[in-house]
């Protein structure tokens, strides 16, 4: 299997920690995009003989979560002009320490969990647990609506990793994950629309150019 899947998975966990402590919305979104890019490479390395299934899952994750959703989020924070710092409830030192605890916990959990599939990379399940947990942590810790959306997406990344475990056997879960993605996209749109709606009473952004005093 080689060292690559594990290295990628450790990159994912590294990015989880960075996601937890980053205090700016733009940085948060960039880290999320980076994590999704790394994630989408995992199935390719895990299942070397490419079939349509892996290609679709990888490519879908790459396109949707690595490129499309980050763009959408950037567009959203630009449009709704929410560029402020996303300060959480807990300070950075506390976050760092609790992320260490969560990481230990996820390794512990995965060692206790019997899986129906063998010959997996060692860090796949811990990385999935840790990504799930950091998504949850972000969700609790965040105070801004956009942070919650990113937290939700990180949570989804964790689910994606779990789905990769069973990729060969259970395609339904993967598809559910992708459905979740689409749902999140709608969620984001909802927020943006809400913002614009609250400010302008209509949805036509192009009409903004006509504003004069």
């Amino acid at each position: 299997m080689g060292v690559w899947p594990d290295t990628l998975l450790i990159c994912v966990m590294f990015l989880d920690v960075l996601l937890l402590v980053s205090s700016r919305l733009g940085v948060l979104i960039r880290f999320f995009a980076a994590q999704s890019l790394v994630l989408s490479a995992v199935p390719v390395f895990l299942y070397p003989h490419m079939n349509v299934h892996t290609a679709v899952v990888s490519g879908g994750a790459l396109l949707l979560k690595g490129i499309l959703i980050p763009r959408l989020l950037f567009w959203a924070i630009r449009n709704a002009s929410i560029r402020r710092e996303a300060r959480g409830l807990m300070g950075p030192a506390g976050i760092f320490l609790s992320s260490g605890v969560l990481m230990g916990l996820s390794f512990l959990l995965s060692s206790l969990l019997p899986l129906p599939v063998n010959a997996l990379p060692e860090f796949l399940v811990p990385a999935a647990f840790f990504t799930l947990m950091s998504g949850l942590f972000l969700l609790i810790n965040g105070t801004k609506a956009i942070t919650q959306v990113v937290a939700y997406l990180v949570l989804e990344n964790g689910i994606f990793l779990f789905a990769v475990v069973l990729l060969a056997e259970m395609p339904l879960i993967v598809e559910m994950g992708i459905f979740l993605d689409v749902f999140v996209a709608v969620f984001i749109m909802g927020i943006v629309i809400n913002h614009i709606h609250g400010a302008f009473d209509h949805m036509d952004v192009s009409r903004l150019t006509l504003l004069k005093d």
Partner: protein
Amino acid sequence: METLLIALVFSPLLPGIIARTKAVFAGRRGAPLLQFYYDIHKSLRKGRVTSDTVTWIFSAAPSVLMLAAVFSSFLAPFGRLKAPVQFTGDMIFLVYLYGLARFFMLLAAWDTGSSFEGMGAGREAFFSCLAEITLFADFLILAKLSKSLSLSEMIQQSSALSWRQAGPALMMVVVSYFAVLLAENSRIPVDDPATHLELTMIHEVMALDHSGPDLGWIVYAGAMKLFVLGALLVSILIPFGTGSLFFDRALFLAGMAALGVAIGVVESVMARFRLDRVPSFLVGSFVFAVFGLIITFARGV
């Protein structure tokens, strides 16, 4: 002996390289690379002025600092060059050698009775105490990877064997160790060595009352500390020997120069952290070390 000579001769070059990198980033020509040699030479020629209120500790501190720097250069591997003094647990000796030097520097700073220096000393004590945990977590990882408790063995074996097997864990070591390196040597995200009259400075403030040769030795010892601690990082990062002794040394020195450039780049692109954020920076580096530790133990290599 050779490691001592290398450290003595090349260490003032490292801050020179850092300063030059920063100058290039800022679009200036910058001081000559050998500026620190001139500075140290100038300081050593001068006479010393001491306050009437200080005790012998104030004068002893620069000597202790320099001695600690000299001894530490015996303990650290320089690339493929093995350390002349090796014994089980020498990394603890190395860390507390610097601890001793720091202790004397703190006492000397408090000895002057200046509240300003006392403040800097207090901060130094606080931050170094946080950096130490990370340092030992890193040493634990290396010891676990190489199954050895001697610094040279630890670093050379683990970097030779493990970049392929335990690359991720070593990567965590490199990241967290680099943060410690910056903190221990009072470089930018923690302390700004270029400021002399700002309230956030830590290391510079403790040497404010030292003059002439005393100051020269402190600067020299600081450069040697940066060199020796940097040498550990470079030795981890260079995973192979070229076979010939000459090329090994050249590779090591090139690595040190690259480290100087890297620190210069970090200092150019980052601002110093607000003082109350430094602890979370150090705690963060500790968490990355713990991360590496978990990975190492989970894999069981």
